[in-house]
């Protein structure tokens, strides 16, 4: 008899056989990756930037899925860390620092620090309060950015200089940016999967299922959640660096609560607690944005409608629709 496993319980529907739906998912992902790698070679900056945008948001959504999907911690303030990454990429060049090898870790560190401090407060609260508090903290950070009048205040400022990878490679060049962000995305997917599958990941999911029970077994959920929150914040800040280079602009809008809501939308669109799902969700969201905005200037209205419909009518996101499986017990 095969040794019992600690993998996700086997709950695929019998009629397709567990294998074929997963093969379908792999095929979809592979096709997407090929397309993403091929498009920048076509020499069309508009589409190359689109691919970069998808990869950037995919990283942000992935980091949020760690919190929301696996941790069960619904944060409505995740864009704050995105914005911190954006501002890091914008402010360091003013000190003469342009190298990615400094800027990216600096952004991650800034995100982690702010995440650790705000997380330590937010995580003391449960459920409903946590949502409110993360929203409030993000608003606070938004106001701080707005208040920096020498940096344009509410309007923000142009990115002084693109982040340099080394040699001739600059993230200001769409093709370089696209490949860099895709590379980072793949690294983060890999890291995210390992974290989710580790003992730490199991504990985080257990805390989500029943934190009181976890305490009764002898472990407080707080330290693990704080670490998760810090990791997710750092990851999102890295995505922010990419975003600053993409739009060549630094503004508080990147940390608005609307942006936080959009990240959550991507997670749920793709299926929470799957990591790969939110990547699909981010790509789908960006695509949706493009299509809708080409039809009407009031595309935000339709985005809102679609979001409401998704929540009310569908029980699962893209990952669930493709594979017929749910995430690690998530929606």
């Amino acid at each position: 008899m095969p040794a019992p496993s600690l993998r996700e319980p086997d709950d695929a529907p019998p009629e397709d056989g567990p294998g074929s739906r997963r093969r379908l998912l792999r095929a979809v992902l592979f096709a997407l990756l090929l397309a993403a790698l091929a498009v920048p070679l076509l020499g069309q900056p508009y589409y190359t930037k689109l691919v970069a945008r998808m990869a950037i948001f995919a990283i942000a959504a992935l980091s949020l899925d760690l919190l929301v999907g696996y941790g069960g911690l619904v944060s409505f303030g995740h864009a704050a860390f995105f914005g911190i990454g954006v501002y890091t990429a914008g402010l360091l060049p003013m000190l003469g620092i342009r190298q990615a090898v400094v800027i990216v870790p600096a952004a991650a560190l800034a995100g982690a620090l702010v995440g650790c401090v705000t997380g330590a407060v937010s995580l003391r609260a449960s459920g409903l309060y946590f949502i409110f508090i993360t929203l409030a903290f993000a608003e606070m950070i938004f106001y701080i950015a707005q208040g920096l009048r020498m940096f344009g205040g509410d309007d923000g400022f142009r990115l002084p200089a693109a982040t340099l990878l080394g040699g001739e490679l600059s993230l200001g060049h769409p093709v370089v940016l696209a490949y860099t962000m895709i590379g980072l995305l793949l690294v983060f997917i890999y890291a995210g999967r390992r974290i989710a599958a580790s003992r730490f990941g199991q504990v985080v999911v257990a805390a989500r299922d029943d934190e009181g029970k976890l305490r009764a077994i002898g472990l407080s959920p707080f330290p693990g959640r704080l670490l998760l929150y810090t990791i997710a914040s750092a990851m999102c800040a890295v995505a922010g660096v990419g975003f600053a280079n993409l739009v060549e602009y630094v503004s508080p809008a990147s940390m608005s609560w609307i942006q936080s809501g959009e990240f959550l939308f991507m997670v749920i669109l793709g299926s929470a607690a799957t990591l790969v799902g939110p990547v699909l969700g981010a790509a789908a969201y960006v695509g949706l944005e493009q299509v809708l905005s080409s039809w009407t200037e009031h595309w935000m209205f339709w985005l809102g409608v679609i979001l409401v419909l998704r929540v009310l009518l569908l029980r699962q996101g893209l990952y669930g629709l493709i594979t017929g499986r749910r995430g690690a017990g998530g929606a």
Partner: protein
Amino acid sequence: MTSAAGVTPLLDLRRLTKRFGALVVTDDVSLTVLPGEMHALIGPNGAGKSCLIGQISGELVPDSGEVLFRGARVDDLSIQARARLGVARAYQVPRLFGSLSVEGNTAISEIVRSRSAFHLWAPAAGQRGLQMAAAAALAQVGLQGQGHRPSAELAHGEKRQLELAMGLAAAPSLLLLDEPLAGLGPGDSDAMVGLLRTFKGRYGILLVEHDVEAVFALADRVSVLVGGRLIASGAPEAIRGDPAVRAAYLGDDFG
């Protein structure tokens, strides 16, 4: 303070009192559980049995009185700290980690016991240490070979078994069992009584139960809680015949 036999009690409750507003749910309760002893707590619904368990595990804070574990006060310790000292609790309605498999649930106890909750990189699946600890606990409760099943799919009786396995995997010395026989059909009930019998002598147990027959068959000592107060405590035969107990709880046509 030790019992008459000179053994330090595993659990020592001294004059615990708890009120919710005007309602006194625990009224000056003192009792002990000796190491390896099965001490049953019976009483009518609403007598405050679950509240008492909650004050031992740390989920409720008594208004006055002391809780001692192995002779040391634990009143200031959190739920998780008491659990780490060796207190395991099973709930009236079994609480499990629904997203995890059967094996995954018991593995959590092992992860906590081995203080490895911050291992972020190595995949937990397929780790020999976790698998063996989980398999051992599952075998103790009769769920061997069921590790791969989603815990949410288990029948009610199996969920109780799993909850016990989770408790045992943490290597406790004291078990707080809150109505383990509730909701079980006759077959499952007999199996559970048999299982509890295998625990006798190996763990100190405070057993809250309504099934009085099972209690009298299993327990070394029986205490009776009525309206938050202990009205009697002693060997099963003595309790069975106690007129106050019969009047308050057992009724005249029992025994």
